[in-house]
């Protein structure tokens, strides 16, 4: 009933399927006919809306048109870029057709004598953008983390796209400009430059917010990133931008023309300090200041020169911001992997302790087994002794509690741990670590003495500090003289730091055990992740003392 040939129908179905992933409802194994009725219609509507928005933006930019051909600030390119980035490069042909039909239908584009060249002029940039985005996304997908793109990928595509489109424009711009018979080379090249600048500015100003909105709509967390900005940082940056523009104004008053260099440096600083979002704000502010200055009365040459500076500002700031974001992400990724590593190490420790733990569990289990049988016998007696039954029952309960407590400690230790810090009592933390290490110490015939002191509370990653302490304790057990070595553990607090220390005498013939080195590295990593440090020293008595320094509240993170 649609009156389309089978081939066309197949192509449209493929389009509906292909685009599906871009709009977040991929993977449905719906039959082709259902795709036809609902989804394709929706996609056609989306394309239509895109075409209308594109045409509107295009008309809006005609204000700054140079050479009757291109505009020095072309927001429509930003919309196109964002659309293709979200929907995927395979939508490029469809988007190009939508642009064409709506523009022509609305009469905003005059098809000149050479229809083919004009059509190509409208369709080609869109296809080139699709290709650039496709290449960049494909390359970056290989290096992507958790399916999220590197922030730099977008920045690179945004800068490369207009340039590629400009180069691709040569074949059809050449005949258009030579219509009068001879090629006006300077005019042609300045036209292409304008084309590139307009697209660059359009993309860098319009595409990021569209992408953020799309991302926020999809993830449901609109402004998580915004909350991270600190007030002091915002004040610093606003003052910087204001003084930069004051300098620009001063230079203009002195008579050096409109020189944007100070603003460029300020915008780059924005990006480096705060990432893409604030870099974008700096770009928008700069653009809003510059655009009125380059309105129609200004000569083409001045306008071109100023917009070139503006484009440099935008590229510099956005690349700097993307770089800062990429770095921040890499740092947080390293932090995440550190957590995984620490978790794996904890599991390894649990495994290494398993023999001692089996001993620790068999002891109460033996008692429980014997007493349970005794209980059965006691109750089978002609006159059960209530007192005996009660005492046996309570002994069993005590032993079962002991086992449950050990299992709880092991489970808590083997857990992946929380991302955030909690306020813990050091006395509790140390005694927990000591009780985890005690079976192993007993097995090695050394003992652990806890040197008390006033309890200290600190904000730390509970399980990780426990892990660090257990590592130190296990090292101490391995190094202490056997039998009869005494390991001392304690804590104290000074200068905003808590100190957790483990001290052990050293046996003269301590064999270098496997894993000792790694334990220390892990402990040091944990200390550093808390903004603290690990110190290992030999005391006057020849004992080894390992001290973990951790800030009480990790606001002082460096």
């Amino acid at each position, binding site marked *: 009933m649609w009156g389309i040939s089978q081939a066309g129908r197949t192509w449209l179905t493929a389009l509906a399927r292909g685009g599906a992933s871009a709009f977040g409802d991929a993977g449905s194994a719906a039959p082709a006919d259902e795709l036809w009725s609902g989804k394709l219609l929706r996609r056609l509507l989306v394309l239509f809306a895109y075409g209308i928005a594109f045409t509107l933006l295009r008309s809006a930019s005609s204000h700054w048109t140079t050479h009757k051909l291109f505009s020095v600030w072309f927001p429509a390119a930003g919309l196109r870029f964002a659309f293709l980035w979200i929907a995927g490069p395979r939508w490029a042909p469809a988007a190009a057709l939508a642009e064409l039909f709506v523009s022509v239908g609305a009469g905003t584009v005059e098809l000149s004598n050479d229809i083919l060249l004009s059509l190509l002029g409208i369709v080609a940039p869109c296809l080139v953008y699709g290709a650039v985005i496709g290449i960049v996304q494909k390359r970056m997908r290989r290096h992507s983390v958790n399916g999220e793109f590197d922030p730099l990928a977008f920045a690179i595509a945004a800068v490369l796209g207009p340039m590629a489109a400009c180069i691709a424009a040569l074949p059809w711009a050449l005949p258009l400009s030579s219509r009068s018979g001879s090629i006006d080379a300077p005019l042609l090249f300045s036209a292409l430059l304008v084309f590139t600048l307009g697209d660059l500015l359009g993309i860098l100003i319009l595409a990021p917010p569209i992408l953020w909105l799309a991302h926020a709509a999809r993830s449901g967390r609109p402004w998580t990133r915004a909350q991270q900005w600190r007030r002091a940082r915002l004040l610093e940056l606003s003052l910087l931008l204001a003084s930069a523009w004051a300098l620009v104004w001063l230079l203009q008053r002195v008579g050096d023309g409109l020189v944007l260099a100070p603003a460029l440096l300020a915008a780059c600083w924005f990006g480096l300090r705060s990432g893409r979002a604030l870099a974008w704000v700096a770009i928008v502010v700069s653009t809003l200041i510059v655009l009125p200055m380059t309105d129609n009365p200004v000569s083409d040459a001045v306008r071109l020169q100023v917009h070139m500076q503006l484009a440099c500002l935008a590229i510099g700031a956005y690349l700097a911001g993307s770089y800062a974001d990429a770095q921040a992400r890499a740092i947080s990724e390293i932090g995440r992997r550190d957590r995984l590593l620490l978790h794996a190490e904890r599991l390894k420790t649990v495994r290494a302790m398993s023999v001692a733990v089996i*001993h620790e569990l068999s002891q109460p*289990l033996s008692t429980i087994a*014997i007493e349970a049988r005794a209980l059965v016998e006691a109750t089978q007696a002609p006159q059960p002794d209530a007192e005996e039954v009660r005492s046996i029952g309570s002994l069993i309960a005590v032993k079962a509690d002991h086992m449950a407590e050990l299992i709880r400690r092991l489970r808590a230790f083997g857990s992946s741990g929380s991302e955030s810090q909690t306020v813990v009592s050091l006395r509790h933390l140390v005694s927990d670590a000591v009780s985890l290490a005690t079976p192993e110490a007993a097995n090695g015939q050394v003992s652990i003495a806890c040197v008390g002191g006033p309890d200290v509370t600190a904000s730390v990653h509970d399980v990780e500090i426990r892990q660090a302490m257990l590592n130190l304790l296990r090292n101490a057990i391995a190094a202490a003289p056997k039998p009869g070595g005494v390991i001392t553990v304690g804590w104290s607090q000074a200068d905003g730091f808590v100190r957790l220390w483990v001290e052990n005498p050293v046996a003269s013939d301590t064999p270098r055990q496997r894993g000792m080195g790694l334990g220390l590295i892990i402990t040091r990593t944990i200390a550093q992740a808390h903004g603290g440090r690990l110190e290992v020293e030999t005391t006057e008595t020849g004992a080894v003392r390992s001290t973990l320094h951790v800030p009480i509240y990790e606001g002082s993170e460096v």
Partner: protein
Amino acid sequence: MSGNELVYVVDDDQDLAASVSRLLRRHDLHAEPFHDPVSLLDAYSAAPAACVVTDVMMDQLDGFEFSSKLRAIDPAVAIVFMTAWPATAHAVDAVRLHGGVDYLEKPIDEERLLSSVREGLEWSRRAREFSTRTAALTARERDVLALLVQGYSNKAIASELNISARTVDDHRAQISTKTGANSLAKLIALAALEQRR
């Protein structure tokens, strides 16, 4: 049958030592718990036992070392080891090197514990009988006895120990008088008391 022979249960887990003792007592054995092997060694001479059930892994004193020290005080005490951390090497050592009656894994198999303790008591009784009967023997007479029960002739013993055949005869006579075993068969039966270490 062996009602009032003493059994000590040693484990640094006080509750477990007490539980095992109660278990043995329920089966008409006279058992006492100890959680400190060192204090048991100090008190042992005053009240020697027939059998000691001991843990292997203990804070103060390793179970094997404890058994060696105990043997030095009383060679005729039977020892049963129990452990929460069984290892083949330990099991072999426990029986061959330290003369343990058995090597039990925790949680403990009650039947096996009981039969091991009873076997230990029986062995201890025989070992004590042997030692009382051979107590009067001189060192040289013991050497002669050891060779005799292995089937050596007087002549072979004489050349082995580098003494004359007559002297061997004298020693044999002394052995028979002191132990009351007046035939080779009885001597062999006597020597058999000492086996099972």
